[in-house]
């Protein structure tokens, strides 16, 4: 028999609870669709949802699903003003608001704060290619660059590139206007977005947040950033455990969570899906030893128990994955981690939010009492988010 939250001795008004989840990836939309794909088991997971192996060969990516955009972004003009990363994010944010029962509550949305974890937006690949081609033979390539950019770049493209304009579009499209902050910094930005929202709610600084991010993997300029470091996986579709080459598979998707104080959620009659019990986050070296030490410390700091269901942010990169494996063997022996990348690809800034969305979904569905979401950034940072039944 499960304990009721109100019976729990450690239940507090300032507990941080998840009341809304918006999740969009190659698997489809909604946390339920993702849990259903997970139910296929680890072997089924790598095949769940499509792979795009042709357009960016040799790099496979997990493509965005077909979305009925107008269900979350009613105005065509808004859709046009955004590039795919923003549309994915605004869509997922809207789904999270729906899930939290907030979509039609203008007053509540106007005091809901936002933290977005984001990189930058799409470039105009055709213009870039044409300019590079022309520059090659031009006597004054920098002058040519000025002329071509002035004449060929769509003026509003800048607004699809600025990191904080996903948050800006969420304000415009959904009316979530408490105030927004955008955190940058790859995977760790996603961890720290949840950490700061959690801290502000727990301390009473803010009552309700929309937190998350999105990533468009189907863009060569973004793949290029990681291909430079030889970090993008270049092999046939395979689950992490079955790959013969290192690297991560980027995925297109968006993940947003509505987080609020327990008392706030109760007062408005919201359904509480899970509690975020603790968020650990650290700057750490990249050696396997340093990473393992840090991740182990985060297990301690967050009070993560041996029975926690593990949702792993594993990347497919040596040292990072080895460290995590070693820590899990010691801290959660016998656990079969859910590997978020196997399900949706690597969502970069949105990866930790997606992991937390999955963990909260598992708890809400009664499939876990406690869950821990790991994140070891490909270049820096580590995080651990512990959730428990609310």
């Amino acid at each position, binding site marked *: 028999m499960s304990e009721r939250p109100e019976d729990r001795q450690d239940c507090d008004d300032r507990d941080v609870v998840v009341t809304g989840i918006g999740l969009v990836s190659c698997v489809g939309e909604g946390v339920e669709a993702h849990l259903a794909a997970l139910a296929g088991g680890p072997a089924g997971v790598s095949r769940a949802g499509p792979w795009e192996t042709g357009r960016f060969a040799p790099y496979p990516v997990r493509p965005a699903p077909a979305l009925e955009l107008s269900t979350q972004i009613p105005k065509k003009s808004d859709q046009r003003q955004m590039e795919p990363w923003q549309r994915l994010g605004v869509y997922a944010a809207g789904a999270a608001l729906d899930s939290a029962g907030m979509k039609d509550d203008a007053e509540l949305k106007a005091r809901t704060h936002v933290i977005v974890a984001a990189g930058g937006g799409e470039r105009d690949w055709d213009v870039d290619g044409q300019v590079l081609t022309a520059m090659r033979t031009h006597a004054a390539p920098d002058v040519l660059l000025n002329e071509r950019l002035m004449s060929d770049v769509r003026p509003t493209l800048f607004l699809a590139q600025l990191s904080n304009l996903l948050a800006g579009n969420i304000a415009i499209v959904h009316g979530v*206007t408490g105030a927004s902050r955008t955190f*940058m910094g790859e995977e760790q930005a996603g961890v720290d977005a949840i950490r700061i929202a959690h801290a502000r709610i727990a301390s009473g600084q803010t009552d309700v947040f929309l937190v998350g991010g999105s990533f468009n993997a189907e863009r060569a300029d973004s793949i290029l950033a990681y291909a430079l470091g030889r970090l993008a996986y270049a092999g046939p579709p395979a689950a992490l455990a079955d790959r013969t080459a290192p690297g991560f598979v980027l995925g297109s998707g968006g993940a947003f969570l509505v987080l609020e104080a327990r008392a706030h959620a109760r007062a408005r009659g919201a359904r509480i899906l899970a509690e975020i019990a603790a968020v650990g*986050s650290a700057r750490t070296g990249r050696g396997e030893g340093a990473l393992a030490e840090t991740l182990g410390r985060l297990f301690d700091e967050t009070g993560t128990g041996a029975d926690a269901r593990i949702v792993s942010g594993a990347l497919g990169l040596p040292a990072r994955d080895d460290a995590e494996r070693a820590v899990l063997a010691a801290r959660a022996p016998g656990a079969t981690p859910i590997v978020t990348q196997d399900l949706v690809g690597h969502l970069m800034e949105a990866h930790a939010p997606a992991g937390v969305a999955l963990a909260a979904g598992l708890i809400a569905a009664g499939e876990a009492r406690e869950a821990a979401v790991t994140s070891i950034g490909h270049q820096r940072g580590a995080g651990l988010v512990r959730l428990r039944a609310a």
Partner: protein
Amino acid sequence: MAQPRFTDRFGRPLVAVTGMGVITSLGEGKAANWAALTAGRSGIHRITRFPVEGLRTTIAGTVDFEGAEDFCAPKLSERLATTAATEAVAQSGLPAGDFPGALFVAVPPVEIEWPQRRALAEASGQAGDVTYADLLAAAETGAFAEWHDLFLFGTVADHLAERFGTKGSPISLSTACSSGATAIQLGVEAIRRGEAPAALCIGTDGSVHAEALIRFSLLSALSTQNAVPEEAAKPFSKNRDGFVMGEGAAALVLESAEHAHARGAEILGYVIGAGEKGDGFHRTRSSPDGAPIVAAIAAALEDAGIGPEAIDYVNAHGTGTPENDKMEAMGLMAVVGERMRSVPISSNKSMIGHTLTAAGAVEAVVSLMTIREGVIPPTINYHVPDPAIPLDVVPNVAREAKVGCVLSNSFGFGGQNTCLVLSAEPG
């Protein structure tokens, strides 16, 4: 001697400033910048970093004395931040390299730049039309691996965290042109939560390259009055026609008053309030009724626990775009009322340009110096008053005044509005 106060009127840890550093086109350090700002000198000049043929705007407040020969935006942004933070930490007296708190740094978004794209295109050997497939092929060689880290969004913050020994996971953030103020706000919140006794808050921006300028130019945001560069930035003037891009950085050491007092540090001032409000009206324009700007100012005053009558001076966002200055004036009039006509307000951007990501931090430092020095830097280039802006903009010449409490405004694309209240006294 009165017992020092360590909490604000709401019982929260009081946030003191114990170190400040700044670098702009006017020079390196507080002394150089203060001398220039109070002399009404402009740091705006003709751009020499890249060719300006074909551009509508050919001027900027770039920082050209910090090794600009190998310009790359994240590198320059890091250098500027390092310079400012070194000055700030040194002034605070906290240990260099072992900072007892978190790092919050406002950094411009990064991306691979044109010199790197060209090098990749060349390395690919593609003799026909270049596409991203060629750039990817060049990347695959591994010969350009160091550019991966150079163009990650988290790299500048990580390097700063390493150098200054800040604690915990550093935050890289953007709220567009209010980013610097948001970095300070995050630090204030962390200290009030008691997470650490101090926070290192930095805003930095060294990103004036051709494409960055063209992006703002295509949105018609920049002044095109290139003839006399020093006179192009004209906040609050009727003939204002846009902002001028600038570069710079500023750093503030925030510290709980209790911690500062315990170690005998000199307190330079206090951040007694911070407020913010999102605007969902438009991607680049403010709500016509000014409600979000009003709400952000009101939130900052409320957070500080003071009324508008306590504000002695407003350090304006004051970009010099027709839209911003009108909306800012309207918002201030709505909150402060008729008294606003006689409250001095000035724009540092008239001299240093719009330092974008850094602006909120740079202007917070200038605000605190205004309090300490008792001199208000002017709004220069103010020769044609705008009847729609009936404010005392401290035209052209610095003014001596006793300033105890400053409101510093920052507004940005994407509906970002952030306001800080800086004060000589605990409030």
